[in-house]
């Protein structure tokens, strides 16, 4: 009897997955998401839509912070760049929607290139604070962008259209976002199992050692920043069409922190973890909302927002304290336990 799942050549080691159940369940999950708009109420479809957009951005942050080990507190900046780039392109140039979203990604990637340059010289917390500086500066530029960005009045974005058909947020646009998310997951998984991903992980473990092994730090660190910013920029573009009104207040530093906490809850460095973490935080928020809604309009509901904040902070602290590998780590443990039962290892 085989005592475990052993890989016997490199092709097996590098393949996306060798497990039939994983493929089946993944397809079922995508199908479930695709069928959701037919079954759920408008509110929940809208929530799922926002969840998927967030997941794209969190995947981007995961590539940088989780896989390459470069801590970024500036992803709210990339999100803002992506959203505003998409909004400006559609308003001033009138490009079709896919191109506008792509433009958001490309602009954010260019910004990522600029922010990536300091990462060649800065490490750890110095880098984190530099990326935070970037986000603050971007917010300032948007606020003072005059008629281009609408300043403090914000920028409105038209309804998304595809090939001349206007898409309603909960119907047509939902499927656009779903397609983007599936593509994003697929690209991220493939990136991480290739040469690029291995270079990223080598940099995460020890960048000087990686350099000694022939990993070109400048090239890969900048690439990590660009890819990560591209993802987040695309999320920004999608968000622009979702909210249809952009205001600088919705891109505060809190957004970066929220994304980081989703990563930590899910498990750093894992694509599935990023998705799980996003879903968990969304679920937590929604669950608390329902809970306080059920309590009625008493004393507690006025404090609901603050209590949500406390629970949210506690979730970060407790996960770091008791489950540093995140939900995905717990999942691996459970899987390990059942495949090896009755043995402990």
């Amino acid at each position, binding site marked *: 009897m085989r005592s475990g799942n052993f890989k016997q050549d490199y092709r097996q080691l590098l393949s996306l997955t060798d497990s039939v159940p994983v493929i089946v369940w993944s397809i079922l999950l995508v199908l479930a998401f695709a069928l959701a708009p037919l079954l759920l109420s408008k509110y929940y479809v809208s929530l799922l839509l926002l969840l998927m957009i967030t997941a794209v951005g969190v995947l981007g942050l995961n590539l940088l912070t989780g896989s390459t080990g470069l801590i970024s507190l500036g992803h709210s900046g990339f999100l803002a760049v992506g959203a505003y780039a998409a909004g400006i392109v559609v308003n001033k140039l009138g490009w079709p929607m896919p191109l506008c979203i792509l433009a958001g990604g490309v602009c954010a990637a260019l910004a990522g290139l600029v922010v990536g340059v300091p990462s060649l010289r800065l490490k*750890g917390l110095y880098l984190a604070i530099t990326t935070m500086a970037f986000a603050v500066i971007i917010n300032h530029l948007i606020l003072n962008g005059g008629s281009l960005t609408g300043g403090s009045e914000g920028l409105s974005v038209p309804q998304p259209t595809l090939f001349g058909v206007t898409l309603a947020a909960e119907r047509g646009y939902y499927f656009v976002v779903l397609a983007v998310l599936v593509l994003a997951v697929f690209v991220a998984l493939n990136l991480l199992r290739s040469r690029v991903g291995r270079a990223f992980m080598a940099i995460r473990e020890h960048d*000087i050692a990686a350099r000694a092994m022939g990993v070109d730090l400048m090239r890969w660190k900048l690439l990590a920043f660009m890819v990560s910013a591209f993802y987040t920029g695309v999320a920004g573009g999608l968000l622009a069409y979702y909210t249809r009104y952009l205001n600088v207040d919705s891109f505060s530093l809190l957004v970066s922190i929220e994304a980081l*906490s989703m990563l930590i809850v899910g498990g750093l460095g894992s694509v599935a973890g990023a998705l799980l973490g996003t879903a968990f935080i969304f679920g937590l928020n929604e669950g608390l909302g329902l809970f306080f809604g059920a309590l009625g309009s008493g004393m507690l509901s006025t*404090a609901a927002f*603050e209590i949500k*904040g406390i629970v949210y902070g506690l979730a970060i602290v407790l996960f770091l304290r008791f489950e540093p590998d995140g939900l995905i780590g717990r999942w691996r443990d459970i899987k390990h336990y059942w495949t090896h039962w009755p043995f402990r290892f």
Partner: protein
Amino acid sequence: MDYFIQLLVSGIAVGLVYGFIGMGFAMIYRATGVVNFAQGELMMLVTYVAFTLAGTFKLGFWPLLLATVVVSVLVGLIVEVLLIRPMLGQPVFSTVMVTIGLAVIIRSVVVLIWGADPMPLNTGLPTAPIRIGPAGVYPAQLYALGIMAAVVAGLWSFFRWSRVGIAMRATANLQTTALLMGINVKRIFALSWALSAGLAAIAGVLVGVIYDINPGMWMTGLRSFPAVILGGLDSVFGAALGGILIGVVENMSEGYIGRGMKEIAGFVLILVVLMVRPYGLFGKAEIERV
């Protein structure tokens, strides 16, 4: 010229607050290698406590400052023991994220207890500005300058001569060797958090007296990051100087370049400085070996 002096003086006054918060950042970073992202929130929390103390016991400025520092030191110790100490051995990033989580919690707790309206912190200090040449300063701002001088002198002698201070420097220098020399590194960590919280209390009371207290106060903590980065994360006195420099630069750029520059001038400045000196002006360059 008058305009210049006015900007300079008010810049220094703002910078002193950044300096106090920045010193708090540096104090913790030096010993433990962690940046406490909750420093601004800690400051806000103890300022609200100070507000309650001032309201209940009708304390004057100096007793209030002292009481707040004591409370804050206790809060710092509690945070260290409950949240930070269990994270020993985890990656620095995890500990930093714990402080971010703490920051989120404190922000909510403060609004929950004290409400969201801005309130004045009344300590009976005269509020009429004193004229020094062309510039006017509030008495509290002069106090801030005096306290800063006293704190810097006190800390300098503490690090230079006292046994504990030397132990703290040794720990900052090399933890393993410090352990071998019989220094209780855990206790040094706790002390660093306590001292840092004490500095946050001073900053908070000053902000409360000069401006007012509101749930947006924690932003001052964010704005103090450039100060400590400019000085170098592990340099306590660098942070004090960095704070004053950032305050002046912010005010000057607001005055001469344009409105809103105040918000970003500090961040732009550190981007430039870090490109030239990646460890700030006075920070220690870390030599890494594989």
